[in-house]
């Protein structure tokens, strides 16, 4: 797996004025790497992560995944990329409130399968969801709705959801940003364990301490990355 962003540009029109958040960003992520992108709030970290995940489109530049430019892919292929090859973890968890923890994890597996394909995969997916929840310490919380879970538990559910389809790369957007120090440290330990198992991770954060866990740190300053 290789994820390669080249010369990414992105401008937002905010309040009638243009804000150029990315000004020629280049980033290469190899298989098994953990890359942390550090930057202040509003520096464009989340935008970069969304572009890497094919969730947004750049004004210019490209993101190559295994040699293919994401933004030249058909809609359905790009959807499959987001479903199968990357896993998003958000600062605010973004769990679906109507589903319990287990269902929130399984929903990503369901998306990758049709109504007819799901019955054949249900048992295997269910088993993997249970294993993930068990591994993340949520075995007893599997039937709880997000509203009944703590912040740390919600983030662990979100990580389990991101991992259910065994993605090539985990895209984590301030994964500890909304948690207290102790819970944040626990989430960081989880990411360390995943990385130790060979999981590629791109994590954006404004926290120097958190970024220290990564193999490589990049600073996003004035819309450009600087290797630290």
């Amino acid at each position: 797996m290789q994820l390669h962003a080249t010369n990414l540009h992105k401008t937002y029109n905010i309040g009638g004025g243009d804000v150029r958040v990315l000004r020629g960003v280049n980033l290469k992520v190899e298989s098994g790497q953990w890359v942390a992108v550090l930057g202040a709030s509003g520096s464009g970290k989340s935008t970069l992560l969304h572009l890497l995940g094919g969730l947004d489109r750049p004004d210019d530049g490209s993101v190559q995944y295994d040699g293919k430019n994401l933004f030249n892919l058909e809609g359905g292929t790009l959807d499959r990329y987001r479903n199968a090859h990357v896993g998003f973890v958000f600062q605010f968890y973004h769990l679906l409130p109507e589903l319990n923890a287990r269902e929130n994890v399984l929903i990503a597996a369901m998306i990758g399968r049709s109504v007819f394909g799901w019955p054949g995969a249900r048992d295997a997916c269910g088993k993997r969801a249970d294993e993930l929840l068990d591994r993340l310490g949520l075995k007893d919380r599997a039937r709880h709705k997000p509203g009944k879970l703590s912040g740390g538990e919600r983030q662990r559910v979100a990580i389990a959801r991101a991992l259910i389809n065994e993605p090539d790369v985990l895209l984590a957007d301030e994964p500890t940003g909304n948690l207290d120090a102790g819970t944040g440290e626990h989430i960081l330990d989880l990411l360390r364990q995943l990385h130790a198992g060979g999981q590629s991770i791109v994590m954006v954060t404004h926290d120097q301490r958190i970024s220290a866990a990564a193999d490589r740190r990049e600073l996003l300053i004035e819309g450009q990355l600087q290797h630290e």
Partner: protein
Amino acid sequence: MYKLVLILKYLRRKLAPMFAALAVTLCTAMVIIVISVMGGFLDLMRTSARKLTGDVIVHGDITGFRHYQEMIDAIEALPEADAATALISSFGLVNVNGHVVGAEVVGIDPEKFDNVVQYRDTLYWTSAHFLDMFRNDAFFTGQPPENQPAIEADIRTYEQNEFRDFGMAFKPLPHGEQLPGCVMGIEVAPTNLRNKQGKYKLVESRTLGHQVTVTVVPLSAKGTLGAYEPARRSFVIVNESKSGLYDIDKSRAYVPFDLLQKMLEMERIESPHFDPQTGETLPGKKVTPARATDIMVRGAPGVPLSQVRDAVQRATDAVVNDHGGDRFPFVMTWEDRHGVLLSAVQNEKGLITFLFAIISVVAFVMVATTFYNIVLEKTHDIGVLRAIGGSRIGVASIFLGYGLAIGVIGAVLGFGMAWVIVFNLNEINLFLCNKFDVCMWKPQTYYFDEVPEQINAIEVIWIMIGAVVSSVGGSMIPAVVAAMTDPAQSLRYE
């Protein structure tokens, strides 16, 4: 698969869509009820109209046409027709209890008439009415013991004889005036009143058994007045007829065919034959054939009405031609005969259904606004679904499927509600009338005892499909908005 899961979850968790489903339910029920009741009235009128006219009617003019018996024989010989009967219809005056009313006086042979149009079923009073009166009315149950044997004798009489038979034979009642019988339309007598249920009660009937005088004015065969004096004759009312068509029951009196024919000078007349040149009496008699104004025909089962009509027209034309005549009676189906009335009700049904269908747009708007609000509320969820691989079409499908589910639930519940209401409408009306004095309609005022309790399956299916399509249509715009939501933007802020 995730779409189905989310639709089911949303259905269980959200209150707002239940209001949309309620709107669909109410609109579906409303349209089904309206269309069923109006359709019921229309069917009622059609049945009544057909009962009055038979399948096909041979109609001359008020002066009548000759050789009607030959025509009947020819018609009954047709494979397209099963039975035919002649009748005479004329304008007249009927004096009922001192009230003189204008009426259509119709001369019939009851047995033959019944063979064509089920006349017997229109005779309102039956022995059951009398037995009910004798056994339950306080006037009779409160009679002293010495009168009871006479009441018991009357009960036995009505148990052994069906009262309708008097009407069928124009036979005078056992204890009444011994005059030829006649059958009045039940609304002819202004004293006939109905109770809250719309039923006429025998104890309140002030016409049965009374003498009436019928006056008609004979016309010459060429339709001129003044050739004859008005003819007057007394009859006794031996039953009353309720066809179901108010205009008919308000103005029709049935009398024996032969008597009316005689009163109108339409019977067969044999007169001396004079030489027009010399004025001398010639041997033999001059015969003026009897006349009738109409022939009613019952078609053979399964034969289309138009085919019966055409065959009857050919048969009657042949009879006229055989006699060298040039006045051909007009043949039409019962639908042609009552076309104006039936099409008016049909148009009313269509118009009212259309108006209620427009009102039902409210369900469409309700679904659209509810779903639009859900989309706004679910922006984060939409972003999440896109982030974990959901497609635009997939996201749109959730809302369309949601709309479909709301539509199906609303349509099914609406049908259930309509079913319960339509098949209990009369009881509901009676309850409201008795309990709160709020009547949706008053049977005393309208010319039906009960609102027809019927539902047309085909119409219901179309209405339910319409409800589901409206619901899906209402969710269409929100679904497109959801599909077009920028996931990156929706996930940017909490």
